[in-house]
């Protein structure tokens, strides 16, 4: 900080809400620990859920000086209600003036609820935050990511929710204290329950492990045309993914969905076929090594993101590309044999 006063009485250390997926902290929420240290030279963290003690003990490795966890049976990543009560209680008890969160479905609900509970400002979809003349300033892209908006907060706590995938975790071991929270949970939070979980992750290969992904979007004509993508994926030794509209149409399972509400992938090669490149899709794949786009709409925003692209009909280009790659493989095999 630049030495000027923080505009309030709360703790200078930002509180980071850590999200857990498959038993580990998400990279996006770990990255916010580094953001907190950059802002204030220290970071606090809170994590809730059945595995949260284990996750909590990993957090000082990413710069969390103080860590709280809540692992009572009422805590579940799918049920934000009790988590809101736990985080709100911690904010009150410790006087946190700044709270940093990701932009997942749960984190959005948590940030919104805290905002209404504390009459506190929430800025979301942020790219970054920094201290400027003693004030916290957030930056956010708007109008199709063509303008940068600087946003501020009046009053505390300041709630800041970050666009998915904007930061990288930084490994930096600090001593760190880890404590269990014993929050009181409101009756409102306990009214929502889990009726059923439907696991759609099928056994066998996982999308997140694939080196090559061929992905289809709204531009794919019909369900049968996805076979063209499957053939290309098979020729390249990869897997097929889809954007959300195709899951909504029932053409492909949700386990194959890439994007904000699906999987986040970073294969060596990502071939986007008939995908416009909406923000919701981009956050799931923009860290891929080489991105190739095939789309008949020259103004599709995917062309601003890809390394190479074809403006053309995927139903013609994909089969031809499959044929050329198969021919190449066959030639290599006969040369080797």
């Amino acid at each position, binding site marked *: 900080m630049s030495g000027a006063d923080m505009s309030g009485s709360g703790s200078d250390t930002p509180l980071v809400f850590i999200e857990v997926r498959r038993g580990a902290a998400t990279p996006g929420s770990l990255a916010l620990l580094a953001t907190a240290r950059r802002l204030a030279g220290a970071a606090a963290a809170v994590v809730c859920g059945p595995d949260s003690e284990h996750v909590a003990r990993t957090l000082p490795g990413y710069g969390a000086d103080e860590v709280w966890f809540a692992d009572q049976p009422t805590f579940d990543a799918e049920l934000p209600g009790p988590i809101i009560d736990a985080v709100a209680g911690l904010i009150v008890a410790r006087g946190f003036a700044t709270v940093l969160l990701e932009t997942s*479905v749960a984190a959005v609900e948590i940030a919104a609820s805290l905002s209404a509970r504390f009459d506190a400002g929430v800025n979301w979809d942020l790219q970054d935050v920094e201290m400027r003349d003693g004030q916290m300033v957030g930056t956010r892209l708007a109008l199709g990511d063509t303008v940068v908006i600087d946003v501020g907060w009046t009053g505390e706590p300041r709630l800041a929710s970050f666009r998915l995938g904007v930061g990288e975790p930084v490994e930096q071991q600090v001593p760190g204290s880890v404590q269990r929270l014993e929050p009181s949970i409101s009756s409102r939070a306990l009214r929502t329950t889990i*009726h059923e*979980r439907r696991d759609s992750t099928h056994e066998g290969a996982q999308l997140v492990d694939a080196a090559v992904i061929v992905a289809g979007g709204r531009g794919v004509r019909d369900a049968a045309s996805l076979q063209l993508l499957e053939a290309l994926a098979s020729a390249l030794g990869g897997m097929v993914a889809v954007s959300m509209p195709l899951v909504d149409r029932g053409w492909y399972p949700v386990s194959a969905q890439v994007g904000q509400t699906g999987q986040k992938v970073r294969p060596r090669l990502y071939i986007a076929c008939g995908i416009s490149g909406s923000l919701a899709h981009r956050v799931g794949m923009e860290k891929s090594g080489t991105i190739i786009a095939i789309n008949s709409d020259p103004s599709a925003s995917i062309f601003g993101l890809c390394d190479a692209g074809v403006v053309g009909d995927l139903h013609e280009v994909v089969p031809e590309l499959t044929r050329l790659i198969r021919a190449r493989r066959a030639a290599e095999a006969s040369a080797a044999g």
Partner: protein
Amino acid sequence: MGAKICVCLKVVPRAEVQLRIEEATHRLDRSGASELNPADEYAIEEALSIAASLDAEVVAVSMVPLSGVETLRHALALGVDRVVAISDVSLAGADMVVTSRVLAKFLEREAPDVIVLGSQAMDGRGAMLGGAIGQHMDLPVMSGVRSARVEGGRLRATRLSADGEVVLETTMPCVVALSGSANVPRYPSFRDIVTSKRKDISVISAADLGLVPSESGPAGSRTHVIGIAPRPVRQADAEIFVGEDGAAAFLVGVLDRAGLT
């Protein structure tokens, strides 16, 4: 008293309008043509389908500038029974905290069984309102929902999770915030459109809801815009091939150069 479903709507600049932020106020220029936030059509559809199972009235509410009130007529054409516009110059520039407080004040008065919201508005409002409204009204919230229905007097909702899907259940009244494309919105018939022209849209002010300017006006907002600048343009260095003939060979060349074949 019959059952009631409320659906919160937002009016946004039409897709073809070049969006512009006013220099002086840092607010989105809303003087051009407007339309219903496309995501809200899913909210209306979900509200109508929940209402059908409860034989409920559907009431739509929107905080909207006067110039956008007529745009809400589309909701009547889609089958909403009643539309209320909260329209007041003092509400211009309201942030999320203020917007959620104003809507919650109205919704408390209506006392619906279910409150439905669409997903993220196209102009950046964010998918936050549902969570904040639930907090203001002390109601349970289910967000990121793809479909919802009433089952044994409780609301049951399906949403995507990291591992597939999860089905949540909660007591009514409650708040349901939808994810993107939750259903297939109906298309109004010519007759529906004509009928909708004869219905009234009631327009009320923040004062009508008993809100004072310190709660509803800019003074109530807890966030502000400091400045706006064009984004530094990152020169796109993508190689683009136009047309189908030769496209596959071009891509094989790209893969070769990247060492991926």
